[in-house]
Each structure stands twice: as structure tokens, then as C-alpha cells.
């Protein structure tokens, strides 16, 4: 019924090797692992704390936001849904600057507080790290959970309305089971991406108390050139991620809603004024939290747009190529890997430190190719790997729903293999595929990936070029490049995501 087993195994082996071979290369070059010290374990503890808090808070806040989006129609709703994707795909340093323009010592929120006679906000510390991670991941969690809501067949809500169920009962009977299915997966991808946080945790952490595992890896690598310790820390991160992913896979319920007729859901239960006001309040809050920092990024970037050197435009072209390459690769891997095991594998893979992964790839590829020549393909491949768990999180629940809802029917009709995919599965997967492709393209365009290790001066991607501008005092031009990057990522995201949605209707 599903993808041919051989294809799934092949894709799985490819992902596993793409991570394990570089790790092994680093261990081999180091001549073995070296022991971890107390400071390393403190970093593990801090990483776990901030990642757990960030994931829990992101998902908890996403539930009411997704519910409001699921049961309301209003002008600008689809624009809001697209813009919600923006923070997640921003390069870290850009997002941090956007957040600081609002919540920093000199941000607009602080200035307003000072005007009113209060102390300015202090964003630096564990709370700042969590705030930034929520800013990044709340939109992703919202979209993932919104997808769960939209997957509840309209017929169920119709039945609930016929039976005169109050909103509380609708929530308990229809929405809670859906959440139990959607939430663990969302929690895990966010937990893992926050686990390997580096620049956010460092910039907003306020000092050495906020030392994450990724920073400990940096220290081992750059300071002591202790490759064995760097690789071992990477393995610790990988095991934590794999553990979390396996646990979530166990906890998540299988789809059990049954099939519907794919109709838009009118929500009779939500027509009350109080609920309407509640949804409006949630959406306003979430939109303000996400969009005001974005607006600040745009405002900072506009003057710089006219100061960008020609290199920036060339870099944008390279980034576009990298983004499209990653998208093809990710979607090609995601379809055969859309299974429980595939998702655990993909989630574990992104917990490997980019620094260690890049070093390993460098060691493997250098004997056969000049690092500068393979910089762009390697970046595209690594970015594809990094986007894979998100693509899977989007695609897998819907694919499983298709299988459980239509699998037996298709079997009895003899619709298997190619027919099942082209006639039943793919048409139903257009929306998640479009969303996953948009996410991948945008993430890949904005990600620094491993290019810094490989790049030659001629072939820098846009994020790298932006860092170079910052490193040369050209903060205004860098802000312009950041705006260009934001616009490009959003356009990619919008094009794929919309492609998926339009095709459905």
C-alpha cells in the first residue's frame, strides 16, 4: 500500500549515513572520544531546561491561536496564516534584532514603559531565550495544530451541532483527541530545534550561565581543538533528541477520526459572542507578538536596501538555487520516510551539531573535491536534512489519515501502487506537500548551514553575505540584506504553500 519498502529503506539509510558518516569521520580524525567534564553536563542541563520550556510554551500558546484560526473566517486570514510562517524561517540574528527592537532595553515596549514611569524590560536571561524560541516556533506549532483542526471532518462538527453539544463537549469529544494526536509531534520538533540552539541562547542568555551544548561544542572545537569531545557532545545531543522523538511517537495516538467528505467546516458551536471575542483576542495577541518584530525588521532594512553592494544580489541568486535544491531533496526524502521510524530518524539527525556535521563532511569530501566547489551542493543537502523533520511532521499525519481512511477501500478496489499514489494519496496531500515545500525552501534560504566551513569568496549565500556585512561595520547594508532575505524566504514559502492550497480547491 505505501511506498515500496525498498524505497523507504533506501531513504532511511541515506539520512542515517548522511549523519553517521560525518560523525564517524570526526571521531576517526580525533582518534576516539574524550571524556566530558562537569561544565559539559551543566550545558546539557541548561539546554534541556530551555528546550523543554520553549517547546511547552510554544505549543500551549499555539492551541488557542490555532483554534481561533480554524473556526473563524475573516478578511486577511490567509495573509495572516502566511505571515505566521515568517519568524520560523528567519535567520537567527535577524529575528533577534527584530525582537530586541520591541523587547530590548531600547525597544519600543521598554520606551513605552519608561514613558509611563516604569523600569525598561530586561530580556536577557533564560526568559529571553525562551521568549525568542517561542517567537520562532509558536507560528510553526500553530500551523501544525491548525492542520490537525482542519483534518477533523466537517461531518463530525455537523453531528455535534445536530446533537446540540455545547462548546465544552465539542472540545472534549472532537478537539482533545485531535490535540493528543498533533501535540506530541509538534512538541518534539520544537524541543529538538531548541536543543541545539546556539546564537539565540548565547545572545539573549545574558552570560555564561546560559551555556548550551552547542556552545560547549564550539569551545571544544575552536579552543581546545578537541574533536573527540565535540563529536561526543554531538552524540549526547543526538541521543536526547532520539529519546524525545521515540517517546513522542509512543505517546501520539493514531488517527481515529474517520473519513469525511473534505468539506469546509462551519462551526455552529463557536457562534457565541463570548467565544468570538476570545478568539479575536488570541489572534490579536499572537499576531502582535509575531508581526511587530517583523515590522521592525522591515523598517530597519528599508534604508539599507539602497546600500547593498552587488555581491548581495549574487548571493541572493545562490541562496535561491540552494533553497530550490533543498526543497526537491526534502520532498523526495519525506514521502518514503513518512513513517514513525522515519520521523524518529529525521528528528535525531537535526540534533547533530552543524559544526560537527560540517567538519565531518569537510573531512570526507576534501580528499575528493575542493571545498569551495562543493559548497553550494553540500549546503543544499545539509539544509534539506535540517528541514526534513518539519516536512515529515506536516506530511506524515495526513498521509496516515489517508491510509487509515481510504486504505481498505483502495485495496478492495485494487487501487494500489502507482494508482493509490496518483489517484488517492497525492491529491489529498497537496496542501501538506505545499506547506512542507514552502517551509523547506524558506528555511534553506535563511539557514547558514555549513557553508561557512566550505565557502570561497565568490560563492557566499545571502545569510553568509549578511554576516560578512555585519562583520565589516556595514550594519545598515546588513539590515537591507536581512530584509531581502526575509522577502525572498516569504515569497518562496507563499508560492509553495499557496500552490498547495490552490490546487486543492
Amino acid at each position, binding site marked *: 500500500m505505501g511506498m515500496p519498502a525498498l524505497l523507504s529503506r533506501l531513504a532511511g539509510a541515506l539520512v542515517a549515513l548522511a549523519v553517521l558518516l560525518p560523525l564517524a569521520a570526526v571521531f576517526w*580524525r580525533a582518534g576516539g572520544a574524550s571524556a566530558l567534564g562537569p*561544565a559539559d553536563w551543566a550545558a546539557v542541563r541548561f539546554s534541556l531546561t530551555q528546550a523543554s520550556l520553549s517547546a511547552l510554551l510554544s505549543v500551549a500558546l499555539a492551541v488557542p491561536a490555532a483554534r481561533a484560526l480554524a473556526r473563524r473566517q475573516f478578511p486577511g486570514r490567509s495573509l495572516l496564516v502566511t505571515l505566521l510562517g515568517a519568524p520560523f524561517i528567519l535567520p537567527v*540574528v535577524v529575528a*533577534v*534584532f527584530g525582537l*530586541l*527592537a520591541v523587547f*530590548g*532595553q*531600547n525597544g519600543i515596549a521598554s520606551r513605552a514603559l519608561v514613558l509611563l514611569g516604569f523600569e525598561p524590560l530586561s530580556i*536577557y536571561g533564560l526568559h529571553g531565550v525562551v521568549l525568542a524560541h517561542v517567537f520562532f516556533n509558536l507560528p510553526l506549532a500553530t500551523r501544525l495544530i491548525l492542520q490537525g483542526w482542519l483534518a477533523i471532518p466537517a461531518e463530525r462538527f455537523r453531528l455535534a451541532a445536530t446533537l446540540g453539544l455545547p462548546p465544552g463537549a465539542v472540545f472534549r469529544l472532537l478537539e482533545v483527541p485531535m490535540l493528543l494526536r498533533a501535540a506530541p509531534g509538534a512538541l518534539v520538533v520544537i524541543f529538538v530545534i531548541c536543543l541545539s540552539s*546556539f*546564537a539565540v541562547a*548565547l*545572545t*539573549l*542568555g*545574558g*552570560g*555564561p*550561565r546560559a551555556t548550551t551544548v552547542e*556552545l560547549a561544542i*564550539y*569551545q571544544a*572545537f*575552536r*579552543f581546545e*581543538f578537541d574533536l573527540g569531545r565535540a563529536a561526543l557532545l554531538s552524540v549526547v545531543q543526538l541521543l536526547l533528541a532520539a529519546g524525545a522523538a521515540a517517546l513522542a511517537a509512543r505517546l501520539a495516538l493514531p488517527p481515529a477520526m474517520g473519513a469525511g467528505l473534505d468539506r469546509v467546516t462551519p462551526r455552529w458551536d463557536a457562534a457565541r459572542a463570548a467565544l468570538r471575542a476570545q478568539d479575536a483576542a488570541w489572534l490579536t495577541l499572537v499576531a502582535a507578538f509575531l508581526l511587530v518584530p517583523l515590522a521592525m525588521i522591515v523598517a530597519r532594512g528599508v534604508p539599507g536596501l539602497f546600500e547593498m*553592494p*552587488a*555581491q548581495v544580489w549574487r548571493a541572493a541568486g545562490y541562496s535561491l538555487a540552494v533553497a530550490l535544491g533543498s526543497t526537491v531533496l526534502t520532498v523526495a526524502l519525506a514521502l518514503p520516510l513518512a513513517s514513525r521510524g522515519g520521523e524518529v530518524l529525521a528528528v535525531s539527525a537535526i540534533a547533530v551539531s552543524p559544526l560537527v556535521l560540517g*567538519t565531518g563532511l*569537510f*573531512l570526507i569530501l*576534501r580528499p575528493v573535491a*575542493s571545498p*569551495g566547489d562543493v559548497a553550494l551542493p553540500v549546503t543544499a543537502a545539509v539544509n534539506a536534512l535540517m528541514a526534513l523533520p518539519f516536512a515529515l511532521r506536516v506530511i506524515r499525519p495526513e498521509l496516515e489519515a489517508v491510509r487509515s481512511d481510504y486504505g481498505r477501500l483502495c485495496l478492495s478496489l485494487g487501487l494500489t501502487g502507482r494508482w493509490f499514489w496518483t489517484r488517492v494519496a497525492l491529491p489529498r496531500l497537496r496542501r501538506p506537500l505545499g506547506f512542507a515545500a514552502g517551509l523547506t525552501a524558506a528555511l534553506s534560504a535563511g539557514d547558514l548551514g555549513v557553508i*561557512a*566551513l566550505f*565557502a*570561497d*569568496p565568490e560563492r557566499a549565500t545571502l545569510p*553568509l*553575505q549578511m*554576516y*560578512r*556585512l*555585519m*562583520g*565589516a*561595520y*556595514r*550594519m545598515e547594508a*546588513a539590515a537591507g540584506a536581512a530584509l531581502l532575505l526575509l522577502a525572498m524566504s516569504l515569497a518562496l514559502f507563499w508560492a509553495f504553500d499557496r500552490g498547495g492550497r490552490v490546487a486543492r480547491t
Partner: protein
Amino acid sequence: MRSLLIAAGLVTGAAAAQAQTPELTVYTYDSFVSDWGPGPQIESAFEEVCGCDLTFVAAGDGAALLSRIRLEGESTEADIVLGLDTNLTHAARETGLFAGHGLSPELDLPVAWEDPHFLPFDWGYFAFVHDADFDAPGSFTELAESDASILIQDPRSSTPGLGLVMWVKAAYGDEAQAIWDGLADNVVTVTPGWSEAYGLFLEGEADMVLSYTTSPAYHLIAEDDPTKAAAPFEEGHYMQVEVAGMLEGTEEPELARQFLEFMTGPAFQSVIPTTNWMYPAVTPPEGLPEGFETLITPDEALLFTPAEAAEIRDAALEEWRVGLSR
């Protein structure tokens, strides 16, 4: 027929000449090679005199550069590594990959320079940069007692961050721990690199940022903005000396040496002040660009030797960590 033969001969000759053009590969840090960095001007200036093809390869920052050379070992394609500082040269020397340069140019450094492997190409003083109208403290002790807020870089991921740790250690020795304890409440945050800290400072996140005494020159010369200043500290200022060295395994030792010689010459050095925003290792004949005379000049230059720096680094880092973790 004859003219055809001549033409063919010319073509072969040209191809042979092209094949014989020697190549020189220089590994350097990222910001050196960008359009607005010194790289492009230096490349064309050197290619004019060397009859060779000069290629810059960018690899992160100074520490990443050293890591890359260590990863590549003897099989490296680099002939020259340009962009290490004196906190890294000890480890670089220990790799045994670097050759003696055998040169002794007259340098304009505030300290004596005798290093058989590495030659400086520019240098600067670390300093806290602030808005000119801010009443800046005049020493670390004054800073620690004041409520001035500062942005610094993490010494584990940033070369200026490590420079500050060395600065406090050089100025205070055994008292360094007390200074860090006192600075803990002044530090707004610690960033991964110089760019983030400097960017946050320009956004108004703190009163001062750890940078260089030459930073105000960028604002003055490139942006016509005289509102930035560096705070002179009475303990003296720690230096960053950026160096280059040639590799033992280079196939072009003569060319590599020629590059190092060129590096301390006027064509290279006159590019440095307004692209790298540091002091040139040898002041070019035309002097420093207009605007540099407005910069503060510390009374005392502090600098550990590479061996000292390597020896005290871990203990100094631990003082930093303990002090700021409170």
C-alpha cells in the same frame, strides 16, 4: 601554411605560459575577502607585481582559520595563512606546519616584534566604544563601580571576547577574578561574535561595547558621523596583533616569501586602515588617513607573548566564567 604554423606555435606558447603562471593560495578570515574588505585591492596590487595568480580562501574568523589548517594538516592547499592573532599563534606554531619567514621589516608597532614564524600585517587596541556624549568610566575599576552597561563577546567563540579576558588578566593579574566579579552586573549580555555585540550597541542596547580604538574612525570616515568615541582606560589597552605565516609544505616558497614581503610594503599597508579599520603594521609613506588623528592613543600597550597567552588562557577563561556566572 607558414602563418598557420606560427599561429599554432603562438597558441601553444600562450597555453604553456598560462600553465606556468604560479599560483599562491592564501587562507584568511571571512571579512578580509569581501568586496568592502582589503582582499580585492590587495589581490590586484600583488598580481601586478608577482606575475602570479593569487587566490584568497575564506574560512570563518581567526580561530576557525586555525581549525581549518589543523584539520587539513600537511595536505593543506594553503601557501599562506593570514589573519591569526597572538592568542592563536602558539597553537599554530605547535602544529609544526609553519615555516620561518626569514624577514625583518621595520614595523610601526607599540611593542617589539620578534617572531620567526609570523609577521604582523595590522594591529589595534581593544577598547570600549560609546556615544561621544556618554560620560564613560576611565578604568575597569571605575566601570565595575559604575552602572554603565556593556556588551561583550564570548571568549569561547570570539577573538575580541578572548582579547578582553586577556586584557583584564594583563592589567590585573591575580586580581582579575575580583574585576570580573565586579563587572558581572555591568554586562548586559555576551554575544557569539563581534558583529552581534556591535549591532546591539548601535541599536541602543547598552552604553558601551567591546571593540577597538579604531572603531570610531569607521563612523567618522565612512559615515561622516563623529558621535562615536572609545574610552581610554588608565590600566592601558590590550592589543590585537594580526599576523600571517607561510606553510612549510608550500610548493611556492619564494612566492610565499615575496607575498609576506609585499604584505609589509606600502601597497598592502595603505589599504588596511579604511578597509580593515585597524592600524597598519607599517605606516605607509602618506601617513594614516585623515580622521585617524582623532582616535585615542593609549599610554600603555598590553600584550602577552604567544607562549604566555597559551599558558594563562584556561585559568583566565575560568575566572571570566565564574565571575559572570554569579
